[in-house]
């Protein structure tokens, strides 16, 4: 039961964490290195890699190599998430989902 509650809390915050990570990338002119992104996102490194994996797999972010350095950028889907986030959040709160 305790595990379930923790999972639920994690799930509840998930949308917000994703929004924060994507916002950080956007605020850095859609190009940021992994280390500063980890620092700004206020997550543990294990938590960050979990979200990083998820966002990459779901196609919200992608990696680009420039001057032999790795940068993270938003995809169209990532921009769409940012655009729709507040509305979706409003929908979830309104219908208490």
């Amino acid at each position, binding site marked *: 039961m305790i595990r*379930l509650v923790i999972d*639920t809390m994690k*799930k*509840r915050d998930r*949308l917000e964490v994703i929004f924060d990570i994507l916002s950080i990338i956007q605020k850095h002119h859609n190009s940021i290195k992994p280390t500063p992104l980890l620092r700004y996102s206020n997550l543990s490194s294990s938590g960050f890699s979990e979200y990083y994996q998820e966002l990459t797999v779901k196609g919200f972010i992608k990696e680009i190599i420039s001057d032999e350095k790795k940068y993270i950028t938003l995809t169209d*889907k990532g921009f*769409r*998430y940012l655009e*729709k986030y507040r*509305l*979706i959040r*409003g*929908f*979830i709160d*309104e*219908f*208490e*989902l």
Partner: protein
Amino acid sequence: MCVVILCFLIYLKTRESYELTKHSGIKYFRDAFLFFGLSYVARFFFSLIFLSRMAFDIHIPRNIIMPGFIFIMGYLSTIGIFYLMFGFLWKKFDNKMIIIAAHGIAALLSIIAFTTRSHLILLYLQSIFLIVAIILSIMLHKGKKITQTIMFYYLLCALWLINLWIISRIRPFSFGIDFFIDLLFEILSLILLGYIYYKISKWVK
């Protein structure tokens, strides 16, 4: 048919929100309307068959159509009620087992109604589920402010209950009054679904 369109519109409108977030609450909410829509499609086809029997004098025995209709509609609407409940309760329970149990209960209920050929069993059991859903929801909202939307959920549940009684063909009044009451509740259901659709459209553009 308007109810069917509204249910499917709610399902389609919320697709992008679900695809972007994979939020369980959104998933159960939209699936509930999908199942309600499908159950109304079943009801619509049943009415069409029934009307075509009268219009074209085609003889399809009622005892063949009715149990099949009870089975399909019973399953779809019961699972719709369960999914609407899950939309509220998914944070409180382990989802997978409860979903399997819900499908099992809905199937069992439909099989019982099919074998006994009694839509009244379906009616009574679904009424119990809806009342339990309303009580659970009231318990969960104890001490919290009940939003306008939640009030409409309660009304929708109440209307579904009344709708079930209408389908059951229990006719306490004369034909004219019963027809008027049927029509009134159909319109009320439509207004409520329209309101929910309007609320969703406001958020999910």
